[in-house]
């Protein structure tokens, strides 16, 4: 699916633009009629003749906030409606792409990026479409009014509008060109910040504090350069608006003939360019928002335009009804796989996972351990070879059918902002509290649960109780236990834990999954000692199972 163009006039944005145009026009008119009033008054007429102007000044003064209020309500409401639609449609579009098409690392960052990009794109309605329309409406009105009194001044105001438009185009180009550089620079500073927050101890351990600060300084220098380059856009428009105003005001002053139009109107015409310049200055901000939204939109399109890595067959085969033993027998025969459709990340591999067997997968980073798990979880299909469950090729079965047998525990289980019970129950809707308690107990969280003041009702996640790394991993394990799926895949569940915690967690995990098939990717030698077999992917060509 495509996010579509960033600037899309819709009924609501056009209405917002018209209302905003009315507000901006009222502001310009306020300055102009005030000038008219003062000059007319200085001619010392009968007071009654001033009344109309006095009423007009007050009316414009009140109309501006009134229309501005309406414009903001209309445009924000439209944007929020748009956001609601897009959120659910983008989410629906992401489901078949998850997880294989979300990148191999830091998927939660990719997903957070989607949230931000979506907000940027939708905000463009409020920050770009509406102000640009408002400015156009007000500018044309002002030029028309000026032309009605004095065509020459009308031309001057039109010229000012063209200068502003040109400035916007230039600013947009500067902003667009510096956008990616700036994003990269910001991401790099964030990366260093994240690195030091997490690895300060490791960096101190090897005396690399100054090196880390050097990286930060480099990242900041890149950020400085990018920000400096980008600020030229806004700075240019800000200067151009004032220079244009100066030229237009001087031109208007030369061209106005007080004898022809009368002194009060002459004053009004001299003040119009200043009022227009002041009222349209906020256009400076729109171009940054536009460039940003276009970048976000392109990123969203690139993500959402991908084809799912796996899909349901047209005529799915039924699952084996009379399954021998306690679970499915999963086999890989010469199975290789690729995330991108290009070179294989998993070289041909054989695996025979009989029910209840515990297999460790080892090998250097990049040897295909996570790819193997993705194949077993059926988030990725084999590019060559066979992947069968109980003798049936998985590609002949539905995704849901194959996946229903498999529970995955990775190193970053997500903790939802809801109660502890609901956090587990998503793995098996309808599970009663006793089952949830039992799963927590098996995952080694029994004692922790007892210490919680609200028990299973304790709120976790954002705004709730924080969890330590070990508790989080155990929560993921408890989910897998509660889901009661016969095959459990463990992807470095203890990668982020310190040594004693990791050992304790892995011990509990292996105890909790004793009666199921388990495939464990881990670097921990102690855990591997407890398993039935070891598959070494670094030891090519992939050989039958060996025990080290």
């Amino acid at each position, binding site marked *: 699916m495509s996010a579509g163009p960033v600037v899309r006039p819709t009924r609501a944005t056009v209405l917002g633009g018209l209302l905003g145009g009315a507000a901006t026009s009222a502001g310009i008119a306020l300055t102009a009629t005030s000038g008219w009033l003062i000059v007319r008054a200085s001619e010392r*007429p009968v007071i009654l003749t001033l009344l109309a102007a006095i009423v007009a000044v*007050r009316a414009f003064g009140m109309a501006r906030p*009134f229309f501005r209020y309406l414009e903001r309500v209309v445009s*924000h409401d439209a944007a*929020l409606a748009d956001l609601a639609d897009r959120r659910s449609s983008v989410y629906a579009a992401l489901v078949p792409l998850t997880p294989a098409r979300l990148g191999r690392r830091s998927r939660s960052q990719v997903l957070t990026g989607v949230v931000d990009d979506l907000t940027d794109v939708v905000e463009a309605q409020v920050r770009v479409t509406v102000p640009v329309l408002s400015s156009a409406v007000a500018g044309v009105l002002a030029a028309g009014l000026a032309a009605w009194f004095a065509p020459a001044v009308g031309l001057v105001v039109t010229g000012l509008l063209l200068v502003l438009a040109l400035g916007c185009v230039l600013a947009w180009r500067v902003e667009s060109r510096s956008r990616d550089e700036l994003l990269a620079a910001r991401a790099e500073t964030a990366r260093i910040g994240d690195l030091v927050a997490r690895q300060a101890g490791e960096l101190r351990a090897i005396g690399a504090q100054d090196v880390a600060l050097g990286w930060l300084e480099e990242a900041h220098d890149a950020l400085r350069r990018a920000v400096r380059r980008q*600020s030229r856009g806004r700075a240019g428009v800000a200067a151009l608006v004032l220079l244009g105003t100066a030229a237009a005001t001087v031109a208007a002053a030369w061209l106005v003939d007080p004898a022809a139009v009368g002194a009060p109107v002459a004053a009004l015409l001299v003040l119009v360019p200043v009022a227009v310049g002041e009222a349209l200055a906020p256009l400076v901000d729109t171009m940054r928002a536009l460039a940003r939204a276009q970048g976000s939109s392109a990123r969203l399109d690139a993500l959402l335009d991908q084809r799912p890595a796996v899909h349901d067959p047209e005529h799915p085969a039924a699952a084996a009804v009379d399954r021998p033993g306690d679970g499915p027998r999963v086999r890989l025969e010469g199975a290789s796989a690729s995330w991108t459709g290009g070179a294989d990340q998993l070289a041909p591999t054989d695996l025979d996972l009989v029910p209840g067997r515990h297999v460790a997968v080892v090998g250097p980073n990049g040897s295909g351990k996570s790819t193997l798990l993705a194949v077993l979880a059926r988030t990725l299909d084999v590019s060559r070879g066979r992947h069968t469950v109980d003798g049936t090729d998985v590609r002949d079965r539905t995704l849901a059918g194959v996946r229903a047998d498999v529970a995955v525990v990775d190193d970053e289980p997500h903790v939802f902002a809801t109660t502890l019970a609901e956090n587990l129950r998503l793995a098996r809707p309808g599970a009663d509290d006793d089952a949830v308690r039992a799963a927590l107990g098996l995952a080694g969280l029994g004692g922790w649960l007892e210490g919680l003041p609200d028990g299973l009702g304790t709120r976790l996640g954002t705004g709730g109780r924080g969890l330590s790394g070990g508790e989080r991993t155990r929560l993921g394990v408890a989910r897998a236990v509660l889901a009661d799926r016969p095959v459990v895949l463990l992807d470095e569940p203890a990668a982020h834990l310190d040594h004693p915690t990791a050992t304790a967690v892995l011990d509990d995990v292996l105890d909790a999954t004793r009666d199921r098939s388990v495939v464990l990717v881990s*670097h921990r030698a*102690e855990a591997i000692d407890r398993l039935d077999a070891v598959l070494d992917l670094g030891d090519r060509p992939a050989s039958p199972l060996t025990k080290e």
Partner: protein
Amino acid sequence: MRPFDPRVLAVAPAARRPVAVLAAVGVAQGAATIGTAFALAALVVAVVEGGGLGGPVAWLTGLLVVRAGLGWTSERVAAWAGVEVTAALRTVLLRRWLEVPAEQRPDPDRGATLSAQGVAAVEPYAARFLPALVAGAVVPVLAVAALVWVDWLSALVVVLTLPLLPLFAALIGAATRDETERRWEALSSLAGHFVDVMRGLPTLVGYGRAERQVEVIAEVSRRHRRATMRTLRLAFMSSAALELLASISVAIVAVTVGLRLTHGTVDLRTGLLAILLAPEAYWPIRRVGAEFHNAADGAEAVAAVLADVTTDPDSPVRGPSSPDELGVTARGLGYRHPGTDAPVLHEVDLEAGPGLTVVTGPSGVGKSTLLEVLAGLRTPTTGEVSAGRVHLVTQRPFLPAGTLRDALRLGTDAPDPALWEALRRVGLEGFVAGLPEALATRLGDDGVGLSAGQRARVALARATLSTAPVLLVDEPTAHLDAASSALVGDLLRELADRRTVLAVTHRPELVRVADQHVVLTRAGAEVHR
């Protein structure tokens, strides 16, 4: 929350200059704006009364050109200040985390959020809110002063109505505070819902629960829209009320001046000046209010950074207690992880000089923690440590994103021949020489392409390059096969000839060649020589 906390300038001196320049440009812009009003009034008078246009035109053009220059400068300075203040704060924060022991650092997740998104929110705060704050403080004062000089009656109107703005804002704020707070909570939980289910998408897909969320998202987004609009209406309403107040005040000035003009008590120039100057007194104050909500996150982040870098004056930062010392001494050492009751280390006495000291003990007895305490990464809860400069090789050694060369040179500036020598000593010379790009091979974020054993040996190679007199090594042979383990054992023995080497290990071979063997138990440390 304070609009501007001057402690920022004390904590991050690098932020002083940009903030000062920002203020100076803001003052100059304010003065030029007031000047423009005079020139414009003079121009209109010249046009209307048919005087010579030359003088006013020159003045107006000159002032607007100056303002254009200042406008250019202020945008550039604002961007510069934004990035400098952010950089200064982030540097202060990270420097502190690199200096203090683990107990004084925030939880990694919180720290990561603070140093990334938190500090980034300071940029708009410094780049947009601070200039608005300067303008809000300077321009109204200048405008009123000019008005007093030009037409004190109009000045009186402005002076009487101006305080109504903050007063009104405060009244509206007070009247809606409870309502706003109540809604704010509901709103942030509604807004957080989408981020939450988005980040949890892989989990939901894994358990087949994702499709169901589409409808939930639509429903929550609709509620979010309604709740947001209720809050926004209130906010827009109060800002409209303030604008109306300002408009009416300006209209009062215009109308009174108009009436006085008809009586001939003031002249045209004065009248024009009054209506051009009066709005300048109001809008900067409204802009401060408008920018404030954009700046709220930044101001909060500033407060959080200040809190983090200025806490705990009682627990001083402990560097190496005696940098020139060649060994390690611990007396009555105890350690308890923050927030736990049971101590990990208890009454540990240990003295290690040049030579090889091996530490053994059952799993979970605190061997890794002992090394961290000795290295100064943790502060002992009881007892004391005295150690020279320390290099610690942990179980998950840090390898930076970059090349193998970068990883090896971390903490030293060793030239390539020294790097090859170090690789030879850990038995990786052949492996690295066989890589297509040798030392220039790129490692991923976390050392992609290296097995756990190779990572461990790279870390050991790095340790041999370090000049620290004390070398602490945690389970150096955990991921190694027998041949590599023997090689590493020999290497440690060799290093121990000139340095203090303290290794945590399970390998009996290493224990046999040690000068000293420390057995760590729950009760303390037993030393065998």
